[in-house]
């Protein structure tokens, strides 16, 4: 597994905090490699994530971003890339 | 003429709450749910009869059971009443419930009658009405106004398994039945000649006896004394002078044999007249006070099954990797429906017992319960249908009974007196009651709110057409006083107190608006505002019934019904229905109520105040998928 950069770690931490709030679960219960759906976040709910991320980091994302990157790990890695591309 | 339906003295014996855990499950045992110790004979009889009836009805999920869901749905599809089921009801001597004890039947308590019929309505309203209650609706006029011979004949007919049809209404005049045209003219030799049609009459084509509401005054002299009630034996009618008209198909209670009849110069003997000539309207209005009070309490059974069916669905259907019942919204809907059933049962309890305890006030309460209960039950079923989703729409299969009960329910708000007609009965009485009873006034005796226990004999002569007093509202005020006083000072009662205060404040507003009602509001030209007041008033009565049922239980030391949480949930629902801003302490206690629903569901106990044991095996949580 490639090393996690500080920026990626920041995204991860942020996502873990957010999800633990949304899902009412302690942070250390959330595994970054497990798909959101396994935590009971259905596909419709997952769509709402993009707006929060946009707000927090000033990125411009597709609403389906959490469908295409369905774990915290994948999503954080994507966000690093999206940020460096200046998003879209 | 004094007509007493029983002679059981008011035992004053505080009935034990109906909350004992049903311990025998696995098969339908005839064991009454509650020990029965310390119960008076009347109460014990009711409980035994309910238990025996439930045992007769058997497991609703058993394929071959004539009272099972599958058989009842099929009968409904065919538009028939199952012969087998009717035969079983006859063998059970169900008609005895409609015949006063002194005439050899079981009837002595109106609340008991509602409770005994409820298990049947839990299965099928078509059988409930078509086999049973229609005969009672007819017979009550004879019990109230008939002479010894008529009472004896009617008792013999019913006890022999026969049927009575009741023809008050004419389709052309609906609730305005004083304008009915079906006539009975003196034939010159003491008898009558019948002329005219009656349409949409249950069992018209298969009843041995008819109770007919007829115009007996000469044309042009129409008024409150122009109609009379006649009791007619169809076997004795000249064949060519009357006929049964075509059957009407209906959306609900499809099994009921609704038809009509047409008479042409049909001669009936003098002894057909029930009560005085010209006394028909009064007899009808008195009879209605009893029938309108008692029928909603029976019909509650249908909503019990609707709720049970949704719980069955919600515990077994999976969605988003969990059961539907794990969805908080579904939980809340189920819990609220149960709470609404308790609210309904509380007002049913008060209304049926008021017939015995407060006959002078029954005219308002009968109309109130007939108006409010069907409305609350229909709203609850609508909400439950949303949880059932597509399965609500499928007529057969596991959940098919739900749509049947939903189709059947409106019949109850239509049959003898629609909602608006009930409100119209209440409205003209409101200003007087508001003036006389809504600030002071004598509260109802505590026995009104007991879920069991003896009652004074029914005396139909004490039923009057306009209420003199309003003890149920006075009891709301009394409950408020009690909750504010030292006797119920506990902090744990703060929510009850706050909710009762909210209801009392609403009462004050309703009172002011009632006092301001104009003279035109006493007629059919009443403003929509007056109808809205009647609606709010009935909800206040329901609130009073709930809090007082709870207070009575506290006294008697029950468990579920003595717990303040159910009454807080119930009063919260009442406030919601009233559209009041909820006090901070309001709480539907969804989780706790849901746990109660699930407990009763799994152990097979009824969703009402009586918590009775139901027939059938314990319910396990087999997932739906596994059944396919």
């Amino acid at each position, binding site marked *: 597994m490639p090393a996690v950069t500080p920026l990626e770690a920041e995204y991860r931490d942020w996502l873990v905090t957010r999800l633990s709030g949304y899902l*009412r679960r302690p942070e250390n219960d959330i595994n970054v490699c497990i798909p959101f759906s396994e935590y009971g976040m259905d596909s419709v709910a997952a769509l709402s994530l993009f707006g929060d991320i946009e707000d927090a980091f000033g990125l411009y994302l597709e609403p389906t971003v959490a*469908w295409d990157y369905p774990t915290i790990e994948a999503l954080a890695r994507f966000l690093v890339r999206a940020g460096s591309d200046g998003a879209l | 003429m004094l007509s007493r339906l029983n002679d059981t003295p008011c035992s004053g014996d505080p009935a034990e709450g109906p909350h004992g855990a049903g311990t025998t499950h696995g098969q339908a045992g005839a064991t009454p749910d509650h020990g029965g110790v310390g119960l008076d004979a009347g109460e014990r009889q009711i409980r035994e009869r309910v238990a025996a009836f439930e045992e007769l009805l058997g497991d609703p999920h058993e394929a071959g059971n004539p009272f099972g869901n599958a058989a009842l749905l099929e009968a409904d599809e065919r538009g028939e009443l199952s012969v087998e089921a009717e035969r079983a009801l006859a063998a059970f001597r169900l008609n005895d419930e409609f015949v006063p004890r002194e005439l050899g039947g079981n009837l002595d308590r109106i609340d008991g009658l509602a409770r005994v019929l409820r298990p049947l309505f839990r299965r099928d309203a078509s059988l409930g009405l078509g086999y049973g209650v229609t005969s009672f609706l007819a017979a009550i006029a004879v019990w109230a106004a008939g002479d010894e011979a008529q009472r004896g004949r009617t008792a013999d007919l019913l006890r022999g398994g026969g049927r009575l049809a009741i023809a008050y209404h004419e389709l052309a005049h609906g609730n*305005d039945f004083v304008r009915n045209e079906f006539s009975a003219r003196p034939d010159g030799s003491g008898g009558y000649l019948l002329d005219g049609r009656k349409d949409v009459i249950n069992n018209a084509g298969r009843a041995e006896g008819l109770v007919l509401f007829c115009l007996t005054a000469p044309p042009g002299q129409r008024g409150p004394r122009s109609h009379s009630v006649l009791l007619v034996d169809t076997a004795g009618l000249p064949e060519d002078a009357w006929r049964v008209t075509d059957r009407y198909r209906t959306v609900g209670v499809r099994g009921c044999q609704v038809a009509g009849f047409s008479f042409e110069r049909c001669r009936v003997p003098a002894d057909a007249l029930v009560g005085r000539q010209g006394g028909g309207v009064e007899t009808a209005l008195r009879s209605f006070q009893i029938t309108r009070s008692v029928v909603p309490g029976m019909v509650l059974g249908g909503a019990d099954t609707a709720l049970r069916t949704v719980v069955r669905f919600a515990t077994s259907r999976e969605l988003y990797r969990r059961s539907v019942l*794990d969805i*908080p919204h579904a939980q809340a809907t189920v819990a609220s429906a149960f709470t609404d059933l308790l609210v309904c049962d509380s007002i049913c309890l008060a209304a049926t017992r008021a017939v015995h305890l407060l006959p002078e006030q029954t005219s308002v309460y009968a109309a109130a319960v007939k108006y409010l209960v069907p409305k609350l039950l229909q709203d609850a079923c609508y909400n439950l249908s949303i949880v059932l989703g597509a399965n609500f729409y499928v007529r057969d299969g596991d959940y098919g009974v739900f749509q049947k009960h939903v189709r059947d329910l409106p019949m109850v708000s239509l049959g003898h007196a629609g909602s608006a007609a009930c409100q119209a009965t209440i409205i003209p009485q409101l200003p007087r009651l508001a003036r006389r009873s809504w600030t002071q006034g004598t509260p109802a005796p505590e026995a009104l709110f007991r879920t069991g226990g003896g009652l004074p004999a029914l005396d139909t002569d004490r039923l009057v057409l306009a209420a003199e007093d309003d003890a149920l509202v006075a009891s709301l005020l009394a409950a408020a006083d009690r909750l504010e006083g030292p006797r119920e000072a506990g902090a744990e009662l703060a929510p009850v107190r706050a909710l009762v205060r909210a209801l009392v404040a609403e009462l004050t507003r309703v009172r002011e608006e009632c006092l301001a009602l104009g003279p035109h509001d006493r007629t059919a030209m009443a403003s929509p505002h007056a109808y809205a007041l009647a609606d709010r008033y009935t909800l206040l009565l329901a609130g009073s019934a709930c809090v007082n049922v709870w207070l009575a239980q506290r006294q008697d030391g029950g468990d579920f019904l003595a717990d303040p949480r159910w009454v807080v949930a119930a009063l919260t629902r009442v406030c919601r229905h009233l559209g009041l801003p909820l006090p901070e302490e309001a709480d539907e206690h969804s989780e706790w109520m849901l746990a109660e629903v699930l407990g009763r569901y799994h152990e097979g106990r009824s969703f009402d105040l009586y918590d009775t044991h139901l027939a059938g095996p314990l319910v396990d949580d087999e997932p739906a998928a596994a059944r396919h």
Partner: protein
Amino acid sequence: MVTTPRRTAPAGLDWPLPHPSWELGARLDRELGDPADDAGVHSYQESIRLDEGEEFPAEQLAALDLWGLAEYYVPAQYGGRLTDYQDLSQLIRMLARRDLTVAIAHGKTFLGAAPVFLSGDHAAARRLARLVRRGARVSLGLTERTHGSDILAGELTAENHGDGLRLNGEKWLINNATRGRLLSLLTRTSPTGGPRGFSLVLVDKDELPEGTYRHLPKLRTLGIRGADISGVVLQDAPVGADAVVGGVGGGAELVLRTLQVTRTLCPALSLGAADHALRLAVGFAQERELYGRMLAELPLTRHTLAGAYADLLLCEALNTVAVRSIHALTSELGVTAAVAKYLVPSVVDEIVADLGGLLGARSFLADHYAHGRYQKLARDHRIVGIFDGNTMVNLYSLVVQFRALARSFLAPADHRPRLASLFDLDRRLPEFDPGQLVLVSRYGSSIMGTLPAAVRELRAEAVGRPALARAAALAEELDRTARELHERIATCTSTVGDAAPASFEDARRYSLCFAGAAALGLWLHSHQAAECGPTGELWRDGLWLEAVLDRVLRRQALGGPARLSAPAAGGATETDLSERLEARLIEQYQRGSLFSLLPCPVAEGPVSC
């Protein structure tokens, strides 16, 4: 603001119709014949007969094919006549006012074909267009026996096999599954599922080898009893690679985007049903004598009828804006469709129940009064709230967007789409571009966003026109309510997945505010033109707007549906409002017009009295 020259209303009954879509609907209705004429194929009598026998309305559907209804399901770019979704909406509405079974049985083809037409797969769309225009029926297969709303739980699989795919599994509770020729199926293409694990496959049963599929028996349903509600089982059914529409893994997204459009069209079914129920109730009230008067004279009856009419107009206003937004505000359709699909069927369920109370015993008799039409439509209509995304699913999709909705309302971004053409009935709509459909609206709801400015505009108009004062006051109250609501949903929705019951209640209130905002926008932008038309009296002095806002606020004040009987404060003005509105209702009834904000004659013609 107004771009086309004003028309003036001519005297007499044969007015020129100001809106082509309403005119098209009227033409369909006229050409289907007077439904009260028992001899017609499209008569009420025939509908009842088919319903009773649970017979499929084959003859009716064939006649509609002949009329060319299916042309309106096919976008013009693929050779059909669908250019303006208002046309389709009005056609469905007019069909539904006669018989929901027929409207649903025929209209299902649009639902089935829509994912293909919206997918951007032109080859597939052209192939399908040819078949649809020739009368082939298309079904939409999402649901399975044990899976409903949770479309990502589907178990019907499509696996690669040679050059194509092999389908295995079952779809159940599917409209026209047996009688239809084609099926748009949502299939699982990845064993692990997930939002990218499903694909839409268009299956032509005529091309499947024998023995690879069979039909499941027709289900007995509460309403639309004649419809073919059945299922299909596929067993190693082979399809070509080109049967996959919208790409492998793109099925869920395509379906959700398509549902935004179809959910916006379903409310037309409800509008038709409400018209039918109200027409029956007004007719009954006018002929029924009770207590020595006509029922129609009793204040309670008049109040009930006026309330139902106001509710119908509320639904129509919301739906008109929603359908126009398919073209003019496509990127926010996710919000708009959910509001319309939830609110309109729910309110119409209430209308139908209230009017049933008015009809009394006659609502319960299956064939005695007016053919038994009421009981049929009451049973039929309950399906509209269930299929194509049920009540809870729509409310839930609002709940998950609460944060974005609140954000964009309370702190609007610079982004402001131009909404004039959305609200102005006299303006042409831009062409619909399916490419702009997105699963979640990025900027919340611009329709809701217009509320504060619209309220100010109405207040300004009311300064010189006292007749508008009450409407303006109600609008201000709506604005306050909307603000409070957004503040609340901005803070209290920190969870997803298991939304609290209170959130659903907020979503209900949100939908009501939204409907109020839509109505306000519609009135402001269209009243000048409409006031000159034949329904001008409804528009003048903000009559319908005031009535509609009143209904919205009353529902806001109450915890749940119903119990609208209590008149709000201000008794006298309110009775007056109810009476003025009722006069318009009776006029539309007697003239033989659709109960509508816009003129549209119905085939029964004027009522002689």
